[in-house]
């Protein structure tokens, strides 16, 4: 890796200031600019999804359904789910962080297919606009899961339009995955063998495999819903010989691996953060790399655990239950290895590391509760209750969103040449952690005592925990708004960042901050394994 850290001035010409025109942004093929475009777009969608969450939590403060009608409530949780899953979580780390740093981590000048990269962003935007339009003209109420025959036959909302929007988002995802696979296979710098790659790359490779193999199946399942809705062919309609559960098989074949699309990149981020902020080699590199691939493969074998009470055979349920236990193992290996990496490390409590800690703790809780759900007997009791809602929010929000924020803070200096304000960042991280747990921990309890999900009214004995959850949500909202403010502030007033403020051995840090358009002045040559901090005591924090 390179020697002394660069002086604390931004280079004269870099990817941001090379051209300020709007066309240079909208027609860019520079992966870094595309990443920024994605960052802005998904932030907008995140806050829209957040508005729906706010309305949901406001309704749930009281047992009676008194804020909105039940039909409207159905639309709220549907749209919250669609926006957050398809338009925030799935693109978040891969399309923003992955697009920005992946080519740099392999030592390349850009992604393998830069124009397709831009096309993927446009697919995303078109999908988002169509979905938002459907939301504005009346919304959709099928749940983000579009279960039949409600979605095909009985719903009177904008199902067709929402499906079209999601299909575009799916194409966006496929093109992103295509780029990742091709870039990692073909554009690695000289000397960068698979075993020398940073773990972020392994995670994103595994994620890309899922994107490629899974997304088309949900595409066809939603197309079938659309066809059924228009032509009433009966493919999912029991009255005409169809099986509604077939839809669920096709839908969950993607949507379960999709949760690994949401978490694997986050895990890749955590690997980077834990090593940089404990200045240590990762414990068990090969195991973490192999675990990423194992999660991707095993993730495709468990989808039936969303269908235990849907009417599948008990033998099939047994198979999926066993598989669901197995898929937890590679995730657990990662958590153990990160923890072991911390042991005897020189730990620094900068904000990105705080988010990494948050991820490790909250993901573990989320993952363990997943095992509760994988047990058939327990699942019968808690399925379709708030237990499930809490489980997946612990992983997606406590896990992925925390890792995303950690990544944003960690790579902010690289992206913009500015440091974020550490004090405010720590306050926000703490606020988010507290707010998150106050919001979602009560939901485990609510689910266990029987409060069903997707209900806008509930039994009065559930109110105390619901009020607590809503209070937590208000704290969480503040926690999310703070970074929006101080990060934008830092673009103009933040301390100028050196090339490598964290003294990281990562390849992306061996170029200026912000980088030039072509990333490296000369193609780097890699001569040692990742995270070789023990070989480089001279590398240190300069931030």
């Amino acid at each position, binding site marked *: 890796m390179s020697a002394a850290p660069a002086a604390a001035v931004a280079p004269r010409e870099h990817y941001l200031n090379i051209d300020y025109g709007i066309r240079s942004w909208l027609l860019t093929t520079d992966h870094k600019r595309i990443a920024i475009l994605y960052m802005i777009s998904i932030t907008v969608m995140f806050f829209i999804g957040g508005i729906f969450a706010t309305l949901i939590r406001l309704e749930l403060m009281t047992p009676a359904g008194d804020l909105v009608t039940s039909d409207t409530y159905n639309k709220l949780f549907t749209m919250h789910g669609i926006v957050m899953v398809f338009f925030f979580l799935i693109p978040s780390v891969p399309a923003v962080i992955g697009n920005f740093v992946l080519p740099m981590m392999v030592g390349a000048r850009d992604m393998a*297919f*830069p124009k397709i990269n831009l096309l993927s962003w446009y697919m995303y935007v078109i999908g988002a606009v169509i979905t938002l339009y459907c939301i504005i003209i009346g919304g959709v109420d099928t749940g983000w899961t579009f279960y039949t025959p409600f979605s095909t036959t009985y719903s009177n909302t904008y199902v067709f339009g929402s499906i079209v929007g999601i299909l575009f988002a799916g194409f966006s995802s496929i093109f992103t995955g*295509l780029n990742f696979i091709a870039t990692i296979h073909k554009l690695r710098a000289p000397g960068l063998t698979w075993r020398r790659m940073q773990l972020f790359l392994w995670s994103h490779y595994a994620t890309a495999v899922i994107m490629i193999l899974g997304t088309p199946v949900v595409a066809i399942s939603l197309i079938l819903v659309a*066809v059924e809705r228009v032509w009433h062919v009966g493919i999912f309609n029991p009255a005409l010989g169809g*099986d509604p559960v077939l839809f669920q098989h096709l839908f969950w074949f993607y949507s379960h691996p999709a949760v690994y699309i949401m978490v694997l990149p986050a895990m890749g981020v955590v690997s980077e953060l834990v090593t940089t902020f404990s200045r240590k080699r990762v414990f068990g590199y090969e195991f973490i790399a192999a675990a990423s691939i194992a999660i991707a493969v095993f993730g495709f074998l468990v989808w039936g655990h969303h269908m235990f009470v849907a009417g599948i055979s008990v033998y099939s349920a047994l198979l999926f239950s066993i598989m669901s236990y197995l898929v937890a193992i590679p995730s657990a290996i990662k958590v153990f290895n990160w923890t072991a990496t911390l042991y005897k490390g020189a730990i620094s409590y900068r904000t990105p590391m705080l988010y990494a800690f948050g991820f490790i703790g909250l993901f573990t809780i989320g993952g363990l509760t997943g095992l509760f759900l994988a047990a058939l007997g327990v699942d019968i009791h808690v399925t379709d209750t708030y237990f499930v809602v809490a489980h997946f929010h612990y992983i997606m929000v406590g896990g992925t969103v925390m890792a995303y924020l950690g990544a944003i803070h960690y790579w902010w200096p690289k992206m913009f040449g500015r440091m974020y304000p550490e004090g405010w960042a720590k306050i926000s991280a703490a606020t988010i952690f507290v707010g998150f747990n106050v919001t979602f921990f009560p939901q485990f309890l609510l689910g266990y005592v029987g409060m069903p999900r997707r209900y806008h009214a509930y039994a009065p004995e559930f109110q105390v925990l619901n009020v607590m959850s809503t209070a937590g949500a208000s704290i969480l909202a503040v926690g999310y708004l703070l970074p929006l403010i101080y990060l934008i502030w830092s673009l103009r007033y933040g301390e100028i960042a050196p090339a490598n403020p964290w003294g990281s051995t990562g390849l992306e840090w061996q170029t200026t901050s912000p980088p030039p358009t072509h990333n490296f002045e000369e193609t780097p040559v890699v001569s040692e394994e990742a995270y070789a901090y023990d070989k480089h005591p001279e590398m240190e924090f300069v931030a």
Partner: protein
Amino acid sequence: MLETPYRDLDQQRETATLGMFVFLLTELMMFGGLFCSYLVYRTLYFPAFQEGSRHMDLTIGAVNTAVLICSSLTMAFGVQAAQKGLNRTTVSFLLVTMLFGITFLVLKGVEYHAHWQAHEVPGAGFLAHAAGVDPNKLQLFFSLYFLMTGLHALHMLIGLGLVTWITIEAYKGRYTEAYHNPVENVGLYWHFVDIVWIYLFPLLYLISRTHL
């Protein structure tokens, strides 16, 4: 011709070919969802599927299979010519390939029309029936038939578009021994669409021909 971020044409070609194979994986999984639906309903409603298969025009189906195989041959020759930098020959083979492709679609159209006239198109006007077979299940067969062959036909159309594009490029003399990868990749797509049909033919047309 050499794009960012490649260091040479070889790396670019290998990467583009890998990209096309990976993209074809997505197509495989997309059709896979329909094949899965087909597998489920055929298992559940085999007699209805047998009956439905008897309503298929075997002659057109078999001829169309042969047509697509021929089109794959001419496409392969088109690729071969491009690999040698022979643009004119490439154009000829690609034009014949398109001719075969259009023939396929025309025959498909004839078939669809016949089904329409026989009231075998699912929906309000569906009238097909047979003794001992639930008409709903028969309709499911036809739904899958139209969905699977329809999606396939859509991919044929896209393929024709892609072949048109590379034919124009070849006509302009763009391909050389060093640079001809787009032709190879369009060829990969075309052959994939052929493979889908290779499975559709027996699954839809040959379920039960033993009792005429």
